[in-house]
Structure formats: structure tokens, C-alpha cells
């Protein structure tokens, strides 16, 4: 009548081998990693990558150890055995030990990660930071530089006119706006200089994602969300939209140019004409 006792060993040992192989193959893939994060070009990204690697090591160790043990127990206790199973169902010492160890590791990791976060997000941008405004729209990124006066001009929703190229609704009645420089789908910044972005949206949610800077920030209508960073390497990179914004979400791309000071000033000048 009993099904189970007739079906022990081989399949459980196979599962043990499967779990071991899974642990080894996955760990190897992460160590060799033919595909990985794109290079980091942000000052803060160095800390982020370090914390990421530390956490990956801990997560990887937990993953490998758990699967090794799982496999080991199946191998050892999966075959035919004489007598009865062990009548053993508690051990306060072991339970206390693994609870405390896990709690210390997890919460410690959280506090360590919070320090990296706080350094990046709970600090004001340096006084010499250059401010650029980012405005998402379906399905493009708009950028605005304040111009020589250092001030952004007023915007009004009713001034938005895509056919005129006024994507953000710059109000021509405000003199502070006359020297503002706007671009679409291309942003340039000088290398090694703190940059502050004010991220906005004019319609639905978008998310400003620059993989080489190691952050993304949602663009939310009605809000101007500040983020700051310093790029340390010149080159051309990409901005993606990472929040579902409609049918052409997958096409919402901007070029992200990091330039030397001289190149940047020339670029900005060419844009202001």
C-alpha cells in the first residue's frame, strides 16, 4: 500500500547533485561574469560598487552554503536506512545562535548600506555645483541650463508648444529665461565638476536612469527632485527611462556627454545660438 518507502535513494541523490551543481555554476557565473554592470564614472559610484560587491559576496555565500547543506542532507538522509528517523525537534542553543548571527549580518549590512546612501542623498551639493534641469515627457528627455545669469526663467504649462520647440513651457515674459539654454535628448556636463540635477516631468512618471552613474531617479509631475553627482571620466553614455510611461517607453533615450571644461563651454555656446 505504501508508495513512498519503495521510492527512496536515487532521485534524492540526483537532486542533491542538482543543488550542488546549481550553487557551483551560479557562483562561477557571478565570479567570471561575462556580463556585468557598465563601467562606473561617478565619484559616489565607487562606494556603491563596493557595497554592491560586499553584499553580493554575503548573498552568494548564503546561497551557496544553503544549497550545499540542502544537497548534503538529501544525499545523507535520502537513501534506505534502518530503524526510525531521529526524533529531534528543537535546540534552543542552535536556534538562538543562528537567529543572532543572521540578525547581526543583515542589520549590519543595512546600516553599512545606509551610510553609503546618506553620503550621496542626505548631503547638500557642493557650493560650486552646476545645476541642470531635466524634464521628462512622453517620450523624450528635455534639459535646461540656466545660462550666464545662473537663473532659470519661469515656465508655464500653457506656454508648452512642441511645434515651436518649447517643450517645457518657457515663459518669454520672464527676463531670467531669455538666456536659458534648452536641449532635447542630449545632455552634456563637464567632467570632475559637481552637478546638481532638478528632475521634473510634464506628463506621466518617467525615471532618469544613467547606468554609468549608478542611480536612477523618478521624474514626477508636480515635483522638482534634486540629485547630485560628479562624473570622473569623459565620454558618451546613455540615459534610459526606467519607469513605464506609455507605448514608446522602450525608445525614450538621451545621449549623455561628459566633456572637458573647454569642450563643454564650446558645446554650451554652440547651443545658445
Amino acid at each position: 500500500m505504501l508508495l513512498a518507502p519503495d521510492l527512496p535513494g536515487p532521485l534524492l541523490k540526483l537532486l542533491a547533485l542538482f543543488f550542488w551543481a546549481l550553487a557551483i555554476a551560479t557562483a562561477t557565473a557571478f565570479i567570471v561574469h561575462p556580463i556585468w554592470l557598465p563601467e562606473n564614472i561617478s565619484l559616489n559610484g565607487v562606494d556603491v560598487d563596493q557595497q554592491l560587491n560586499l553584499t553580493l559576496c554575503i548573498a552568494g555565500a548564503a546561497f551557496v552554503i544553503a544549497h550545499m547543506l540542502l544537497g548534503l542532507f538529501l544525499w545523507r538522509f535520502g537513501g534506505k536506512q534502518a530503524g526510525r528517523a531521529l526524533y529531534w525537534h528543537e535546540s534552543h542553543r542552535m536556534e538562538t545562535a543562528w537567529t543572532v548571527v543572521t540578525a547581526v549580518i543583515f542589520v549590519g549590512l543595512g546600516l553599512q548600506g545606509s551610510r553609503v546612501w546618506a553620503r550621496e542623498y542626505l548631503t547638500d551639493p557642493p557650493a560650486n555645483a552646476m545645476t541642470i534641469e531635466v524634464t521628462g515627457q512622453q517620450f523624450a528627455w528635455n534639459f535646461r541650463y540656466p545660462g550666464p545669469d545662473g537663473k532659470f526663467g519661469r515656465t508655464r504649462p500653457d506656454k508648452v508648444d512642441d511645434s515651436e520647440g518649447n517643450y517645457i513651457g518657457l515663459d518669454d515674459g520672464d527676463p531670467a529665461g531669455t538666456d536659458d539654454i534648452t536641449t532635447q535628448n542630449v545632455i552634456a556636463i563637464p567632467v570632475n565638476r559637481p552637478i546638481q540635477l532638478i528632475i521634473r516631468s510634464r506628463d506621466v512618471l518617467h525615471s532618469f536612469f544613467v547606468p554609468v552613474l549608478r542611480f536612477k531617479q523618478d521624474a514626477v509631475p508636480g515635483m522638482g527632485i534634486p540629485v547630485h553627482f560628479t562624473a570622473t571620466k569623459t565620454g558618451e553614455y546613455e540615459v534610459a527611462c526606467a519607469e513605464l510611461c506609455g507605448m514608446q517607453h522602450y525608445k525614450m533615450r538621451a545621449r549623455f556627454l561628459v566633456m572637458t571644461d573647454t569642450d563643454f563651454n564650446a558645446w554650451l555656446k554652440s547651443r545658445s545660438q
Partner: protein
Amino acid sequence: MSSHASTSHSTGHAAPQGFIRKYVFSTDHKVIGIQYIFLGLFSAILGTALSMMMRLRLAWPGSQFPLLEHIFPTGFPGGVMSPEFYLAVLTIHGTIMVFFLLTTVPLSGFGNYILPIQIGARDMAFPVLNMLSYWTTVVALMVLMASMFVEGGAPISGWTAYPPLSALGKIAGPGLGAGQTLWIASIAIFCLASLLTALNFITTTLNMRAAGMSLMRMPLTVWAWFTASTVALLAFPVLLGGGILLLLDRLAGTSFFLASGMVVSGKVMTNSGGSPILWQHLFWFFGHPEVYIIILPGMGITSHIISTFSRKPIFAYKAMVAAIFAIGFIGFIVWGHHMFASGMSPLVGMVFSVLTLTVGVPSAIKVFNWLATLWGGHIRCTASMLYALGFVSFFVTGGVTGLLLAQPAIDVYFHDTYFVVAHFHIIMGLAAVFSIFAALHFWFPKMFGRYMSETLGKVHFWITITGVYSIFIPMHFLGMAGAPRRYAQFTEFAYLSKLQPLTIHISWAAFVVGAAQLILLFNIFRSMRWGKRAPDNAWEATTLEWVIPSPPPHDNFGDMEPVVYRGPYEFSVPGAKADFILQTEQEVEGGE
């Protein structure tokens, strides 16, 4: 069981006559449980078919599929799947899987069938309400299906339906008209049904237990269903409220989630005063506990099955109960980890981060206890046990990546990339689905009096576990490379287009897994009719469902008045005559 008139305890439970009362509008918790399971099966077939279509487009974005054009003329103009159709498929896939499969089957399906029997009750506390819950769920599913066939197209805003996209109406693009309205209505109706079910489960557990079934003698499945129901009772009203506000924004011109100054498709909107982030708080205040509504029953089922087939008492029963409670409680105060990039205060993000890592502790305790239960066991290799071990593996694999996502500094890179897609598919999707497979093979003999085929079960297990790991381990690397989710194709970005070979590999693995599910379907329907006959106690197990006939009579226990004398997992007790002792056994020969 006796055909004599029932004794005083079984009042009001005469078996109904006639097909409609017996199988359609039934108030019998067992029939309703099976109805939920079949509703889930239908949803799973649909949801899986949709995911196959997504994999087609992702792997070969420009290719023509003339056959699919015949079936979906508007979704495949010229045979090529349109991006908005991709987003619609993605939205319905997520919605149907999360709500109508993962929420419905482990809790409402198996919980309905098994919970009353395991505590020694003859039915749920409110049988008519139970029937109402089921049919309300059916209405919700029908409304969701209808949303795919209305003018303007199926909804495209994902299962999270973030406003403004979901609130603006058709001005914001295709798929945001009537289809989106019906989507919200469907979810609101589903909330109502889930609330009624939760109420019923809680009352039943607290009030209907047999003599001797003290709380600390309840099987861990019952603890898990009870806790998940409590979480559901507190979480679903928030989504219901949010859904109603979102409907008002769409239909009545309010601005709960809409800020001033929006310009949509060239038109200046007149809304003012609302906040899109408010929806995210309401949604995730529900949405994160929802993850635990899905996974707690899976944990209960896994504990139950691992104990049974290791022939050992579950290790640290009390700690397991405490961990279920801790997860249910802490699960309510971690929702902000979905919102690190939303514009929420960074300081609040830090608090949510540490709380989120805290919820990892009771989760880890459960894994340790499952391992300790295996130690020294006489492990029986049933298909059900293999699936339960698969659950443990997925719970670990999906859990450890949570350590990365819980830290905002790291999460703002991974948020909304395929790393997250891999993470939640493993820990929420696969773990829960494997608990469903385990439960199905385990309780099928009770439900239908016949075993499912062990051989087919094992073949299905091996193909599925190998296949899904071939999908989701590589998928982490898409996320590592920074591939955003909800992209209809990866070809528009230089840094993404080099990922295409990996995407194609994932699609092929997905097709294998999808095809393998036919084995499961075949096994279910074949075994109902031709499976090997099962005795009442099909697995030599200990809890109350194994005391009664398979399938059980309408009032479960007939003339028997179940009395419970011991805990739920008395396996391999030294000196006992068998290696299991039923909860109803009073004396143990030879003592302990």
C-alpha cells in the same frame, strides 16, 4: 461512514441535491476549494500563454508571426507584435498571475479545502459568504478578461498601474481608455472577494476548532492560512480605497493622484492638488503584504510536507509559528523599499531599508528549520516532497538577492531592471507555484480518492526546475547590465542591444518550461479518472484530513466527533508502533 441519521453535532449539513447546488452554487468548502483551484488553473494557462508571447517579442522584436496575426489582428499588425500590445500582454500577465493564480490558489483554494478539515470543522464559519466570495472572484476575472476586448485596447500600465499614466484616460495613449477603467474595477471587485474570504478564514480558525485542537496543536498550514488571512483583511481595504480614488480620478474629474501643471499630448490639464506618489504608498501598503499573502501559505505547505516526508516532527514548531507572525507583522512596515527611487524622502528610505533587512531574519529562521527538519530524517522521495524542496531552493535563491534590493544605495541601480524581475519571479512566482504543485500532489488523493502519477510528477518537476533556473539565473545578468523592465525591445540602446543573445536563450528556456506544463495538465485530468486508488491516509501522515475518507463526505467527519490529543507532527516517536501518530490517537502503545 454510517448512513444513520446524524447525531446532534452535525446539524444543518445535509448534503445538497441537484447538480447546480452541488457543483456550481455550492456552499461546501471542499467544492469551493476545488472551484478556486480550477479558476487558478485557467488563469495559469492564460498567464503562461501571455508570457510566451512576451518572450517571442523580446527575442525576435521585428519578426512576423502570421499565425498570431490571425488570432490578434490588432495586436499583430502585419504579423509583428506592436509595442502597446506587448505592454497589454505584460499587464494582463502580471495581474492574472499575482491575483488570480498566486493569491487565489494557495490561500483560497487549498485553504478552503483543507483548513476546516485540519481543525476538525464541518465547514467554514460562513458557508454562504464563502460561495459569494468565490463567485465575486469569478466576476472580477470576467471583468479583467473584458478589459482586453474593449475599444481603445487592453490596459498597458502594468500590474502596479501607476498614475498619472493609469489616471489620465485615453489622452495618454493607447490602452489607457475603457480597458484601464475595467482593470481597476476588476481589482476592486477582487479586493471585496478577498476580504470576505479572509474574514471567513479568521472566524473559522478562531471559532470552529475541534475539542483538543488548541492553537499550538494546529498544523503550520493552518497558522499560515490564518496569518495570511489576517494580513489580507488589513491590506486589501487599502488597495480597494486606492482603486476607488483612482476610478474617481478617471471618471469624476478628481485629482487625488494628479498634480497641477501637466501637459499631456499637447493639452494643458486642469487637475491640481494631487500626488502621484500617494498611489504608490497606498498600492505598496497593500502590495508588499500581498507578497506575504502569497508566500505564507507556501511556507505552511512546505513545512507540512517536509515534516511528513522526512518522517520527523517539524523542527522548532514554536519558532516557526513566531516566524510566520513576525513576517506577517514586519511585512506591513517595509512597503517603502519599492519606492527608493520614487522621490520619497531619502531619510525615510533609510528606515525602510533597515526594516526590510529585519524581515529577512524570520525568513532565514524558516530556512534553517527546514534544513534541521531534514537532518536525521528518513526522507521519502515523492513528487510532492521534490516540489517542497524546490520551494526551499527558490526561497533561498530569491531571498538572497533581496539583500541587494533592500539597500537604497544599490537599489537605485537595480530598481525596475531585470534584476528585480528575476528576484520576484523566483521568490514570489516560482516558490509559490512550487508550493501549489507540492500541495496538489499531496492533497489530490484526499480530494479525488486517487493519487496523481508519481512518474509524471517527477518528470514535470525535473524539466520545470531545470528550465526555470535556466531562465532566471541568467536573467539576473540582464539586470546587472542595467536592462530596464517593461521595454518592448532592447534594440534602441547601444548598451542593451549586446544583450540580445542572452534574451534569446531565456526565451527558448521559457518555451521548454511552458511546454512542460502540459505534462502537469495531463497528469491532473488523467489522475482524476484513472489514477491509482488511494487509502484514507494516503501518505501515512498525522493531521485530521487523513482520518476521514477520501474524498470526504459532505460534512467531513460524518458521525465521528473528532477529538485531538496531540500536536500535528508526531513522526518517529520512540516506542510508538508506527512512525506516525494521528492527532486523534489517544494512547501510544509502549509509551514514549
